């Protein structure tokens, strides 16, 4: 070590000498105008024309679309962290979109697969438009620089994704999401989009039915301030973190948008629709991709049995995601798993594929095994369990044409939104094109709206801000509270949600969970954070996020309890059949000022495709 340091020191002194030589052909230009939204206005509140919350693919595409639509507008992307740390970046498989019609594929076929995949809880007119936009999006992404893998003709390469009739899942190796994110960031920088990093949206203000802006906390300084905006786009991602450690999504995807919308009196649609993936690592839920089973990986219980033979003997491990998930969870529940409680698991074995094949075809999966389970897949089977993967439900958006919520000036996009593309179950490859397509539409419409709209008065926004300022003081000001209190509560909430409204749902367990939620809420309300420093107080960020997760949990539970049927990812052991007579409907959850939640139903838009049994 000392040798390395010496070398480093030497190099550093060499650099200083080089600096003295001033070998330079032009210094780094002065940083471009500071990223500031503090344009003064009569009210003294900062303003911005189009304010986008969230910097995943949806947020970044919205920002570019808004700038392109109207270059005179200020477009600012707010992010809790540096952009590109989003859930988008974690997507691997690919992005659906028909660009090759030579094998008989069509937009209608993509739409049909999407509708069927979603177990018919998909608005069918939306699915058709979505499929068309998705095709166009692929060419557009290629044009703005996304490096897709290529076929022999130099066109974008495509593969099969689950539930698809044709090959239409376009990909960039096994890191399509990562590459999409960085393409979107580049494009946003190119188009002059400004960023407000390390800013957290605490609340959203709706006055007289219109969106007038958001309350932002500058995490860097701790300042809590109102920002008025002519239009706001919520691209805050999903809320699968309600299961805390049993999800594949990033720590930061905590349903901030959905919770803010509920607090503002707007609607959260289909909150009970949460997708599970069969194979997440036991510790922390990171994804082991389908390729592990696709290549021949086998699943085993504590009896050493390939238990899938008891569930789907003709398909074994390659049965659909939801069935494999339920089978694994059932093995654990009936005592044939390993470990216990939230650390229970079954084994995924790929050893028989041999060292060479594992190193060549499954290197990423092996790496994840080493990181999370300390297990080398070449030598040992790995501990896995289903993991929550995607939120089909989200902020209610009235139409794919505008991606507008019911409040003028407020738009939503990507996983945060629910315009009913995915229904009760999302198809593989449809999430990235959802983010790209809905982001762009939201951006265009937000810009159009902003060009015509005036700023709101901001009175309610001001009140909300004052409330949050005193809230911060109250929560962090006293020296009471233990370090572990909040984290323990978060783990318990995740576990309770997992066991009572996870893969298996029944009335009695969900009623029990409702009581637990009330207790969790009381504990949450009494929480105090032993850190009064306003500067980068990440504990307070986590505190706010946990509050949002509690709200999202309650909404999901309300929907799941009321939906007395099984459909897509929503599986009721007491109602195992789909019930189209009573539940071919979206659940629409709202919250009143007292915090009580209410449920209404909205018919699914049908008309293009016949509602059939979902069978593969």
């Amino acid at each position, binding site marked *: 070590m000392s040798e390395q340091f010496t070398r480093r020191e030497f190099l550093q002194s060499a650099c200083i000498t080089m600096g003295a*030589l001033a*070998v330079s052909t032009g210094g780094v230009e002065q940083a471009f105008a500071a990223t500031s939204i503090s344009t003064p206005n009569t009210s003294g509140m900062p303003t911005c024309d189009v304010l986008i919350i969230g910097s995943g693919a949806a947020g970044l595409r919205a920002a570019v679309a808004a700038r392109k639509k109207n270059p005179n507008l200020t477009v600012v992307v707010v992010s809790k962290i540096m952009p590109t740390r989003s859930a988008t970046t974690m997507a691997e498989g690919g992005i659906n979109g028909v660009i090759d019609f030579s094998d008989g594929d069509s937009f209608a076929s993509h739409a049909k697969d999407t509708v069927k995949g979603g177990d018919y809880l998909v608005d069918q007119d939306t699915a058709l438009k979505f499929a068309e936009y998705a095709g166009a999006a692929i060419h557009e992404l290629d044009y703005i*620089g996304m490096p897709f893998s*290529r076929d022999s003709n*130099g066109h974008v390469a495509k593969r099969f994704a689950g539930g698809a009739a044709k090959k239409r899942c376009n990909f960039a190796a096994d890191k399509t999401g990562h*590459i999409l994110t960085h393409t979107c960031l580049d494009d946003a920088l190119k188009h002059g989009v400004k960023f407000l990093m390390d800013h957290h949206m605490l609340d959203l203000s709706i006055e007289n039915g219109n969106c007038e802006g958001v309350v932002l906390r500058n995490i860097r300084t701790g300042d809590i301030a109102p920002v008025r905006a002519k239009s706001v786009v919520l691209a805050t991602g999903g809320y699968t973190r309600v299961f805390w450690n049993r999800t594949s999504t990033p720590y930061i995807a905590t349903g901030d948008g959905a919770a803010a919308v509920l607090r503002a009196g707007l609607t959260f649609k289909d909150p009970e629709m949460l997708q599970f993936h069969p194979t997440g690592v036991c510790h922390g839920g990171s994804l082991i991709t389908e390729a592990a089973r696709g290549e021949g990986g086998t699943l085993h219980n504590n009896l050493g049995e390939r238990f899938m033979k008891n569930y789907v003997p003709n398909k074994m491990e390659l049965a659909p995601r939801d069935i494999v998930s339920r089978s694994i969870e059932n093995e654990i529940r009936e005592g044939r798993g390993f470990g216990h409680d939230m650390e229970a698991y079954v084994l995924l074995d790929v050893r028989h594929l041999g060292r060479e094949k594992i190193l060549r075809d499954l290197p990423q999966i092996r790496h994840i095994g080493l*990181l999370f389970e300390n297990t080398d897949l070449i030598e040992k089977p790995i501990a896995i369990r289903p993991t929550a993967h995607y939120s089909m439900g989200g902020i209610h958006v009235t139409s794919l044409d505008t991606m507008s919520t019911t409040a003028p000036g407020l738009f939503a996009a990507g996983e945060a939104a629910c315009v009913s593309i995915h229904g009760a179950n999302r198809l593989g490859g449809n999430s990235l094109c959802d983010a790209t397509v809905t982001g762009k539409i939201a951006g265009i419409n937000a810009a159009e709206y902003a060009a015509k709209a005036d700023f709101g008065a901001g009175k309610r926004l001001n009140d909300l801000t004052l409330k949050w300022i005193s809230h911060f003081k109250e929560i962090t000001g006293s020296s009471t509270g233990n370090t572990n209190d909040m984290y323990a509560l978060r783990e318990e909430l995740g576990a309770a949600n997992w066991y009572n409204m996870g893969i298996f749902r029944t009335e009695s367990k969900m009623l029990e969970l409702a009581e637990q939620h009330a207790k969790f809420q009381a504990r949450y309300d009494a929480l105090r954070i032993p850190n009064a420093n306003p500067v980068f107080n990440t504990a307070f960020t986590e505190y706010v996020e946990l509050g949002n997760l509690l709200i999202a949990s309650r909404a999901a539970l309300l929907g799941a309890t009321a939906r007395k049927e099984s459909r897509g990812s929503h599986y009721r052991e007491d109602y195992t059949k789909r019930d189209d007579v009573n539940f071919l409907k979206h659940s629409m959850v709202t919250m009143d000022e007292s915090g009580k939640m209410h449920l209404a139903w909205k018919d699914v838009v049908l008309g293009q495709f016949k509602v059939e049994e979902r069978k593969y």
Partner: protein
Amino acid sequence: MKFIIDRFDGKKNYQQTYTLEKKDIEALTLLGTLLLIKQKQDITLNFTASCRMAICGACGVRVNGHAYLGCDTKMTELFEEYKDADTFRISPLANYTVLSDLVVDWEPAIENLRKIKPGLVAKDSFSEKEGCVQNQKEYDRIVKQWDCILCGVCASECNKLTADRSDYAEPFVFTQAWRLANDSRTKDPMINTKAAVKNGLWNCVHCHECTNRCPKHISAANDIAGLTVLALKKGLNSGLGPAHAKAFHTDLVEGSGRLNEIYLALRTEGVSTVARTGMAITLMRAGKMNPLEIFGGHTIEGHKDLVKMIEAAKAATKE
């Protein structure tokens, strides 16, 4: 085991020591260890993390001075690398402004990215409606550089940035310029090459430390070298950087094969190098520079072979 963490609360810097049992962290990653400290011992400790599977780039920190991606580093690897150490020092990434504890300011880096003109400007034959065409070979050429996750590890290791951040950008910025300039779909590679030159490309000191620790095994140093070659090829050969490079070439091929420090300075800076007399005297006193070299040095052994190698390399890289 002890973990000494460099802390900053917004006003003052200090160090804080946390004690953990080795058995409790053996199966964890570096990020897992930080989470354990925050969640069990000290809620005030600040750092950033998001995906925990080495793709979002949020959790870069330094251990004993060197940068690591927290979620991609197993504690057992650190035990192995720093044999028998019972104390680790954890610090924020170097060459960034620290906002709090292990959290650094990414804003200037993002603005530096903006300066190399990110975003493809596609050839006129391509369109937004129909996309582009690219063969597998052309794709393979740039795809490694697209693995960059903006974790900042290379920037933390960069000795040039440590010396002076004012006239240089983070190594990953140049990697991103390289991948655009070398994309077969681009209308003009000079868009990004010129921008890279303008933003300090020639100031790289070729120490290759950025390459050493990149979690994705990308060599920013090679990308920087690639961009300088492209710049020279396209006639961007004025200025001190190209002159400095040419002086090396002259000594190696036409000269003795040994770098002549006196001529290097003269060829790079011309007469204004007189201002460096003081440094020259210091170098001579330390025995680092022989004043007699002004009359030319003695030719190295095997000089002919060296020239052959350089010519072969030139021929191999000809377009």
